[in-house]
């Protein structure tokens, strides 16, 4: 699926929630379902800065697509990572670099988009794009 399609899908899913509790319960569920980073890659050099709980992000190229994996000590942070990875993992570097993150606002997590947030969402997005730049094969 294309990035935009997945984003629309996520927005659609989140639109059914009536309150923050349902939304966060879903986020937690996502956090538990995230593709975990391989143990050997769960190292300090893969840590994302600006995050109160440790958050690791790793990327590798498989057939022209970038596969992201992540882990965090905190489940909400993992949930947030999950809604990023579901969109950006298994996409081409070019598509990743051309995408936007408006869907984060659309699903009502705009508050997390402040660069000063302790969950590191903004740093994570930046890191995802850095990887895409670095692994761009075109």
């Amino acid at each position, binding site marked *: 699926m294309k990035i935009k399609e997945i984003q629309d899908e996520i927005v659609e899913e989140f639109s059914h929630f009536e309150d923050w*509790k349902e939304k*966060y*319960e879903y986020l*937690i569920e996502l956090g538990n379902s995230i593709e975990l980073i391989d143990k050997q890659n769960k190292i300090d050099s893969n840590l994302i800065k600006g995050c109160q*709980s440790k958050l690791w992000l790793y990327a590798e190229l498989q057939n022209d697509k970038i596969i992201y994996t992540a882990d965090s*000590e905190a*489940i909400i*942070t993992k949930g947030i990572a999950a809604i990023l990875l579901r969109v950006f993992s298994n996409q081409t570097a070019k598509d990743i670099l051309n995408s936007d993150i408006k869907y984060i606002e659309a699903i009502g997590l705009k508050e997390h988009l402040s660069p000063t947030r302790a969950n590191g969402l903004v740093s994570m997005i930046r890191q995802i794009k850095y990887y895409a730049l670095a692994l761009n094969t075109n």
Partner: protein
Amino acid sequence: MSFDINKIRSDFPILKRKINGSSFIYFDNAATSQKPNIVIDSISDYYKNYNSNIHRGVHTISQEATDAYENARAKVQKHFNVLNSHEIIFTSGTTHSINLVANGFQDLLCDKDEIIISGLEHHSNIVPWQMMSEKNGAKIKIIPINENGELDMKIYDNILNSRTKLVFVNHVSNALGIINPIKTIIEKAHKVNAAVLIDGAQACAHFKTDLQELNADFYTTSAHKLCGPTGIGMLYGKEKWLKKLPPYQGGGEMISDVTFEKTTYAELPHKFEAGTPNVSGAIAFGVALDYLNGIGFENICEYESSLLKYATEKLKLVPNLKIYGESINKTSVISFNIEGIHAYDIGALLDKFGIAVRTGQHCAQPIMDHFGISGTVRVSLSFYNTKKEIDSLYNSLKQTISMLS
């Protein structure tokens, strides 16, 4: 005076806020306190009516501002029962105060000297000494903490000796809320002629300290921790010490004569107050002390103790909850974790319920390392909190845990 919690709460405009649809509950008081209207208004009043640069002006508002500023110093002096008003230095906060002293001792100590720091310190009270020690080679020794988070006074006795020149301990630990035995620490240090700096940042909102009785050589606090504004704090120093220390910053106010060849420094307290001070901040700091003394620290202590007791008992009902630092000598802080759940998750969800707590290492990484944890959830109480708010915390915490498990 009786303690009228409804009246008190109505003094704090921020307590009327709603967060995420819920009433706002503020349990992050150890990070910074909220401000009563009277303090906020004193700042507006200053800027609306007599804002001026101080000390050097002959015109009316300059005089009014100077008097108000010096009057604020007198209030701080009185509050802490200090002998001379010039022993009170206005700084921008505790961090500034401690750095001022550490910078001064840089020239006074050498690599044969030792200083002692407690293992319960805030980063503000560790890093300046590390920076000093890098320059003059003085050795830093640590008073470690035990499993309750209390200082190991036996080890203190062991490391204290005639080479010890300075001892640095906080009055109350910000991470755990533990009240340190500073009176004993000071007495013992003085026996070997070491000076003692007490970091009072966490103590001053909860009880009143008589500095002559305590006999500390230095004492620091930040106004923002005790209902005052940001950007202002104080350093108390015994006259003999303040005279001995070299000035920290150069600038206006702190000099008496300047030529390009030679500068003579002004007398205390101006020697340490270079540049235009935070005039509105100092004035509002004084008003904050007035406000707290108006309620009465006996009343505050009593009320906060009962809150702490209530909150501790209530939280202990939560399964798998571990409190760090269960000393009986504690102020209004409860630092805890729930087994298997990260502190950040708890803080983030409590926020959704409108409850502000702090999570993380609380600028006290060595304490976290001691307990082998990456952080805690810290609930810190103030006299404007209520048992009802603690009940809400309890209920929200239980929901939070069930969401996370």
